[in-house]
């Protein structure tokens, strides 16, 4: 069983149909891929992943819509990445702002690149 199949088996609540996981938006698939890649890299085990994701889901409470599943997934990714020292909350927040500035500075129809951030390379 490869690691992805194992992940799908262990992380039981992944939205799926008979053909495998389903994503409602591209970013969900991207977040899914990040978790798979980080696991393959050994940043965390699937049981650590399931525990962190479970905590995020529990924090949202029983009334949280099922559609929020990948919001919890993304929050769990951030938590584990910070816990493993791969980034800090601050660098994540700063980088998020940089992407936002880059998107706003990018004409529609062109790829959004981080170097389009007007503050890119100004000493951060």
């Amino acid at each position, binding site marked *: 069983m490869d690691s992805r199949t194992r992940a799908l088996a262990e992380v039981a609540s992944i939205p799926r149909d008979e053909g495998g996981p389903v994503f409602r938006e591209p*970013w969900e*698939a991207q977040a899914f891929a990040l978790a798979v890649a980080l696991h393959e890299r050994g940043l965390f085990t699937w049981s650590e992943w399931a525990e962190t994701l479970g905590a995020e889901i529990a924090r949202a409470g029983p009334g949280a819509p099922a559609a929020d599943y990948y919001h919890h997934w993304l929050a769990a990714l951030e938590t584990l990445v910070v816990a493993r020292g791969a980034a800090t909350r601050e660098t*994540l927040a700063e980088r998020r702002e*940089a992407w936002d500035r880059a998107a706003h500075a*990018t004409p529609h*129809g062109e*790829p959004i690149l981080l170097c389009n951030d007007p503050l890119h390379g100004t000493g951060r």
Partner: protein
Amino acid sequence: MGHTHHDDHHHDHDHDHDHSELSETALRVRALESILTEKGLVDPAALDLIVETYETRVGPRNGARVVARAWSDPAYLERLRRDATAAIAELGYTGRQGEHIVAVENTADEHNLVVCTLCSCYPWSVLGLPPVWYKSPPYRSRAVIDPRGVLAEFGLTLASDTRIRVWDSTAEVRYLVIPRRPSGTQGWSEEQLADLVTRDSMIGTGLARDPAEAAA
């Protein structure tokens, strides 16, 4: 560094949608991905490979159902022509970005082709994840300059008198191509018809499948 407010940069242009916009979650995913890439913890090419596996798994086959309904129900087709966003919502398919969808219909003398480099500018609520080639710079630039050549590369050769219209998606407007209904499908159910509607046929880089070939 606090919250960044963009208010003072905003002038009230009538066309203030000339820049790109990423959703909150997309920004956070990009932040993670770019930092982890710099640290050598992930490889973007490997991520693409994982995502590609699921390319057809994003969103159910909504678009095909829309097309099959339009082929089967003239009143629905009429509503789709008038207001595709509302007609698609009738079937329960809505995007969360509030984007507007316009249906463009292929006819005997006109073929439609959709283009845009940004994955956010793709009617994913009906078509799922954009294929990798759709996002590639060569496709985007060449689809506009040489649509006939691009279609030929997809194995689609149109009659020389067929007009090709290229639709460049914007942040607000996404296009869904309604391919022509294949002949020999009289009396087919919507379910059967939907099986003939490929993703590429709804982008315009392909046609609906031939019923004989589909049966094979």
